[in-house]
């Protein structure tokens, strides 16, 4: 018996088949879990983006697929003063509005972070401009800026400060500042409330320690609040810049890009040419031309976020 047992050793355990291995492979499983998300992203983000870029290389019109024409759309746009005007307007709009939104938003956040009566209500009120649908607030601004019925002109006239109505939206530069102001009004709450959330994560013990060390208010802000706030500032400003750069509704309701294209942003010009004018290819090229600017904004904050100096203060490398 024993001999038999010795001479017939138990077969070595069979190597698992690839399928069996796959069944317990966590990466394989993870892939399946991620598939719905990936499908969603590809279908609703990557595909439209890719299609948009492809359209920009064609002479597609609404209702008719075009043929590949290479860089012809871009070539035409590079020589189109209206397009360059819209690029200028978009940059001006984004830079000025984002900077002011940041400065005022931060100031507001610091104020709201103080202890004061009715804190919760005041914070809720600040959010109102952000809650109101853009189209609705744009229509309100349209009345405020009306050439004949502006409340601002009316008030100033009755105070005897001006003789005629202010030509808010009929003069190129007035119109630009007017739409920028409307955008700032609408965008500040987002910046303020998000920065306020950031402020509340700063540990009070740091402030206490600084106060004991005799730091002034400015020093506290400069060396504690601001450095600790930088990561959230980077995120907020990225979003703010992206929203502002791609703004459409406000301009469309207020001016439709007028007067004489002085307030056309790339997004509104793209819509006018693609949907209203029917030149899908050209409109897609204008939209595609926005991508480099948006990428630059994203990369800037991305690398900013990676830097610990930004995140944790200057001395921490």
């Amino acid at each position, binding site marked *: 018996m024993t001999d038999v047992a010795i001479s017939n050793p138990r077969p070595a355990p069979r190597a698992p088949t690839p399928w069996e291995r796959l069944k317990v492979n966590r990466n394989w499983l993870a892939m399946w879990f991620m598939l719905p998300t990936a499908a969603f992203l590809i279908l609703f983000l990557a595909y439209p983006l890719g299609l948009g870029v492809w359209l920009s290389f064609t002479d597609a*019109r*609404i*209702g*008719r*697929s075009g043929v590949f024409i290479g860089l012809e759309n871009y070539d*035409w746009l590079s020589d*189109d*003063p*209206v397009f360059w005007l819209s690029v200028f307007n978009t940059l001006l709009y984004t830079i000025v509005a984002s900077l002011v939104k940041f400065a005022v938003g931060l100031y507001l956040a610091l104020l709201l972070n103080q202890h004061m009566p009715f804190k919760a209500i005041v914070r809720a009120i600040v959010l109102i401009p952000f809650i109101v649908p853009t189209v609705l607030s744009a229509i309100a601004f349209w009345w405020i*800026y*009306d*050439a*004949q*019925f502006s409340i601002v002109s009316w008030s100033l006239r009755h105070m005897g400060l001006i003789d*005629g*109505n202010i*030509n*808010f*939206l*009929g*003069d*190129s530069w007035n*119109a630009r500042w007017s739409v920028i102001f409307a955008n700032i009004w609408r965008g500040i709450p987002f910046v303020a409330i998000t920065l306020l959330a950031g402020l509340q994560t700063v540990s009070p013990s740091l402030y206490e320690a600084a106060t004991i060390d005799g730091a002034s208010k400015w020093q506290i802000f400069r060396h504690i609040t601001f450095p600790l706030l930088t990561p959230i500032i980077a995120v907020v400003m990225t979003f703010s810049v992206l929203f502002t750069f791609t703004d459409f509704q406000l301009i469309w309701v207020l*001016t*439709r*890009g*007028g*007067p*004489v*294209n*002085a307030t056309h942003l790339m997004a509104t010009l793209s819509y*006018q*040419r693609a*949907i*209203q*004018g*029917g*030149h899908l290819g050209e409109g897609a090229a204008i939209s595609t031309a926005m991508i480099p600017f948006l990428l630059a904004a994203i990369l800037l904050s991305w690398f900013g976020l990676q830097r610990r100096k930004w995140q944790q203060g200057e001395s921490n490398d």
Partner: protein
Amino acid sequence: MTDFTRRTLVQGGTAAAAAGALTGPAFLEWSKAWAQAAPWKPEKDAQLSILRWKYFVQAEDDKFVELMEAFTKATGVKITISRESYEDVQPKASVTANTGAGPDLFWGLYSLPHLFPQKCVDVTDVADYLGKKYGGWVPSAVKYGKEGNKWIGIPICYTGSLMNYRIAASQKAGFSKFPTKTDEFLEYVKAMKKNNTPGGFALGHAPGDGNTWVHWCLWAHGGQHVDASDKVTINSPETAKALNYAKALYDNMVPGTASWNDSSNNKAFLGEEIHWTNNGISIYVAANKDATKKHIADDMNHAYYPVGPVGKPTELHLMFPILAMNHTKYPQACKTLIAYMLEADNFNPWIAAAQGYLTHCLNAFDANPIWTEDPKRTPYRDVAKRSLTAGGLGSNGEKAASAISDYVVLDMFASFCTGKDDVKAAMSNAERQLKRIYRS
């Protein structure tokens, strides 16, 4: 007691068209009789969906819905109506034409059927039937409706854009009647401004009021954006004359017109900030409806645009043609419906409900009392006859549609009037854009 037979109804209906509208059960009886006698028979179990431009006058839409309901009762064809702002009908129609899915009928702006002529149901028989019955089509309607020898759409109506002015202020400025020549009109505009009763034309991106007046001004001076072979001809001495004329007007308008959209002049006129402008009849209708604005209605009137150096009317009005897509499963039902809409018994009360906002394209409807019972409406009766087409001398297809919706001519005028560009730059910018739109 009413005892209608099919024949008396059909005959009586057309004869008594202008005299008065049928209502209630009589109208339904008439509709049924009409449907039996009509040259087209809707397919069995037909259903239609129609996309129309969003109304300006609520009563007009109510009447339209009433017509559709009567049609359903008379023929059994169910109709679904959807509405879009008039500049948004075109993109939707284009997509439908391309994909072959969507509404059966589109009722949109200007040259809509010409954007995809091969996708439209041939409605020549409907056009001939209506034309023969109602005194023929006006020339601009034929241009909008026909592609070659075939009718690809039926011009339902126009919305007129004419001069609106305050009577007392004009008289005070020394004009007992509204100027009929452009030179005289410039004097008028200057005098009105001097009297502190200025007016204005929209120079912002106003698809209706803005586009109509700049095209009038361009054509009045002999300028054309393209010639008969679609060659771009905007850069011309005539255009320069038109621009200079417009600038002289602009300098005497109320400030802020460069920011105006389609509703700005309505607001300003009703707010008594301006005393002349170009518009449909909506200001007058609104003023009449509001007791506090009644004095404006009483003191305002309408006039044709002044005639320029070319010596003939050069007006552009908004045309609303209807077309049936050839993907429809029910072409006969589509034709029946279109013919039904334009039958006198339907069309007359409908046009009356619109209170002058819509103008017919068939000559016989001139007799509708709506145009004469209030003489202030009368000028709008003639807008279809006076209108030129959106393509100017050139074709009426998608190129003309693109040029209008991209505001090429409007921006040319605005950029010169506001001092952004000089004449040369304004013209060459427009020329450059047009050449691209009109490239073959």
